[in-house]
């Protein structure tokens, strides 16, 4: 009976009539890493949120250590020895590292906070994790990957017997991922049960003992990791077979479309030079925080530039804000669709037409709803966006379809250069392929495609040329034939002389 530290049976959960979990079964043993897999919206996060008391289940039984548990809230979960690292960063930016780590379970002596003791214990913990951080640093001042490490430290510090990690690696650097895996292995050996959620299937071979697969809110299967092949995993996640994970089309390189010369913008964009040609996709690889996003934003005019030239079809263009870029024909599909891509309270149709109002409006600025309808319908059709009504709020779509909307709004206009920043992040395998096909279409039409990604397999699979960035600089430009994961990683970690860079910072 108590073979499982966690067991969930017949768990159901609906959000406003939409079933997120439908009769789900799940179990976890102590001393193992259970990988929880599934497409976007499969219900993984919902399941672990129910286990950790963030959401309350509509129905079903949950057993901890063989005993049935009724009501669960975050505090109860904590008492049960459950710690969770959420998919979203969950830190208080105004509080210090130590304050965050002890939030909700502050140490007190006779009712007073013992900040000294908390700082001391935090310092110890950070030391153990080999993190170069002070406990009294304000979290808001840290980089995203450091913040993620603080979250991990927070989870570990609870001495939890059940540790849940919902996509912990999506914001980490490779050094930190190595450390994380080492920690996971150590905790497993100490008898901790770990639930691990990730879309990066290649990570699994380093840590996973068993896998549970979910699809459309339903439980599909549980298996020993060694008993199941990657293709089977994918087939079970998607519900059908994906023939080609990276569809590539071969074209001859045409004339030069676009050139960036000596672009500088802050510490993360230093002396960037790059070129785009017709009939090719250029990938930008690099670790998180290497300045790729900032480079695309600087080109697009979203952030101010210090110096540099941008040349489009042989003509120099001045770009001071996104509108200049859009008018010139350079567009950006931003990396964070919720933050930068979508107006979730506007309709799908309004989102698609937003950047295209210039040609949907007459001289007086009055909108033509006919033109708008035509444009939106065309975009929806071309991208095969699954929706019932273009007047629905964009928030009502699933993540993959939301991402398609973000892409669609740019494809409706005749652009010369389309920059994609992490277009597949957090998106499941099937939609990924559709996004690659969109990029291929653009390539076929002779439009310049710049493609930023942190996932090396897709960079290698889709791009024709690969630019590697590290610390705000371009460290290499590789042809796809000469590029391998190892070579890219070598350049991606080619930091400038360490000591010098510390001083500089």
């Amino acid at each position: 009976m108590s073979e499982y530290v966690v067991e969930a049976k017949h768990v159901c959960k609906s959000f406003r009539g939409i079933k997120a979990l439908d009769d789900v079964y799940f179990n976890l043993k102590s001393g193992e890493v259970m990988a929880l897999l599934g497409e976007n919206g499969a219900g993984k996060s919902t399941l672990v949120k129910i286990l950790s008391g963030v959401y309350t289940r509509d129905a079903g039984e949950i057993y901890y250590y063989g005993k049935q548990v009724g009501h669960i809230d975050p505090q109860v979960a904590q008492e049960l020895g459950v710690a969770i690292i959420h998919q979203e960063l969950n830190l208080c930016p105004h509080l210090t590292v130590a304050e965050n780590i002890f939030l909700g379970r502050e140490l007190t002596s006779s009712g007073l906070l013992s900040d000294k003791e908390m700082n001391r214990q935090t310092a110890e913990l950070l030391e153990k994790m080999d993190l170069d951080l002070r406990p009294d640093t304000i979290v808001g001042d840290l980089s995203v990957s450091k913040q993620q490490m603080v979250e991990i430290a927070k989870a570990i510090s609870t001495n939890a017997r059940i540790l849940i990690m919902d996509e912990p690696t999506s914001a980490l650097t490779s050094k930190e991922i190595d450390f994380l895996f080492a920690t996971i292995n150590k905790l497993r050996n100490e008898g901790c049960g770990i639930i691990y959620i990730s879309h990066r299937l290649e990570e699994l071979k380093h840590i996973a003992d068993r896998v549970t697969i979910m699809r459309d809110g339903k439980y599909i299967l549980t298996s020993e990791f060694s008993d199941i092949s990657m293709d089977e995993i994918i087939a079970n996640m998607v519900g059908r077979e994906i023939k080609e994970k990276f569809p590539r089309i071969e074209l001859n390189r045409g004339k030069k479309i676009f050139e960036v010369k000596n672009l500088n913008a802050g510490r993360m964009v230093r002396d960037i030079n790059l070129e785009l040609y017709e009939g090719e996709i250029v990938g930008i690889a690099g670790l998180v925080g290497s300045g790729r996003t900032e480079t695309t934003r600087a080109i697009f005019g979203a952030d101010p530039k210090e110096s540099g030239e941008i040349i489009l079809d042989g003509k120099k263009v001045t770009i001071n804000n996104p509108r200049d870029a859009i008018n010139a024909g350079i567009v950006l599909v931003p990396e964070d669709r919720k933050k930068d891509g979508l107006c979730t309270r506007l309709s799908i149709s309004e989102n698609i037409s937003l950047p295209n109002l210039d040609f949907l409006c007459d001289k007086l600025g009055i909108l033509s709803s006919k033109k708008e309808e035509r444009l939106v319908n065309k975009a929806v059709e071309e991208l095969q966006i699954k929706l019932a009504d273009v007047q629905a709020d964009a928030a009502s779509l699933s993540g993959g379809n939301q991402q398609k909307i973000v892409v669609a709004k740019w494809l409706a206009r005749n652009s010369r250069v389309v920059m994609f920043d992490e277009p597949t992040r957090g998106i499941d395998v099937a939609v990924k392929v559709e996004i690659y096909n969109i990029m291929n279409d653009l390539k076929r039409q002779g439009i310049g495609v710049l493609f930023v990604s942190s996932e090396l397999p897709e960079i290698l699979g889709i791009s024709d040329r690969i630019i590697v960035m590290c610390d705000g600089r371009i460290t290499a430009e590789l042809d796809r034939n000469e590029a391998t994961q190892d070579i890219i990683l070598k350049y991606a970690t080619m930091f400038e002389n360490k000591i010098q860079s510390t001083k500089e910072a």
Partner: protein
Amino acid sequence: MDLERKNFWKRVITKRGMGQVITVTFGLIILCAVFGVINPIFFSQKNVGNLLRQIAPILIIGIGQSYVLITGNIDLSIGSVVGMSCMLSATLMTKGTNPWTAVFITVVCCLLIGFVNGVLVAKFKLPPFIATLGTMTMARGIAQIVNNNYNTDSIGDAARGFRNFFYYGSTLGLYNAVWIAFVIWFIFNFILGKTRTGRHIYAVGSNIDAAKLSGVNIFSTTTKAYLVSSFCSCIVGLIICATSGMGTMDAGNSYEMYAVAASVIGGVSTLGGRGILLGTVIGASIWGVLQNGLQFAGAPVAIRNIVIGIIVIVSVLLDIVVRNDKLIRRKGLMASAKQKGAENA
């Protein structure tokens, strides 16, 4: 798919707060019926005309506030700009300026306040609550200083045309003030619903970062909303000046709150991105009907306050319960322009 079709009506109702508008319209009808029963005079032709004229100023400032709220900001300076407009125009007229020149100068000065609001909020990223709290205090100071800390004398007979135009005259059986409100509503409703600027205003309020990256000029859009708000306040100031035939320094006191109440009751979200001006009409009407009807019903001010407080809370509560809206997040009003976007994530 099926599920999504089933939700069609829900979606219509959710869209920009249309549902809230429908709900409160029923509320308005019930309210009118109740007041009509309590006192039949409520429905007399005279009182209806009168009532409409009382709703007009609330509606006009409501339109301005709605614009600003839809961009996700707030304008606390409305009441003071009303006072400033009233004092400025009256002072100029008593000093012998031609009424229409005075109106022109007043409009320009009020728009300046709107522009300052826009600059502080969209350029310097001040939280709109603070920025407009500052300009609110300053504009009241200006209202006091223009005539040396005194109310003006009567603007006199030369301004008869001005007074008739803005308040006392009537056209086709409706008071001019009502026409003015209608024209303003018509124009700004059109702009909000049918033009690029309107679309941009919704986009900025819904997600400022996404709007920026879609090529929307945040500064100009935000500033336009504040200009509309100041313009509306200015018109109300002129109406008050026409109504009373003089400038009073404390005219428009706390009108900004009435404007928020009218907008919010009508389904405009204080978090930005949601609301339609039709709702503001209903919200302002509820406000006006309450004031008028409670007075006829003989309710003391205290009861009036309690009823209004309850209605403000209940109307928003109802909206939240009906839509079970997860989008409603806290801090909406307080966040600076820059911060807003992140709230959506």
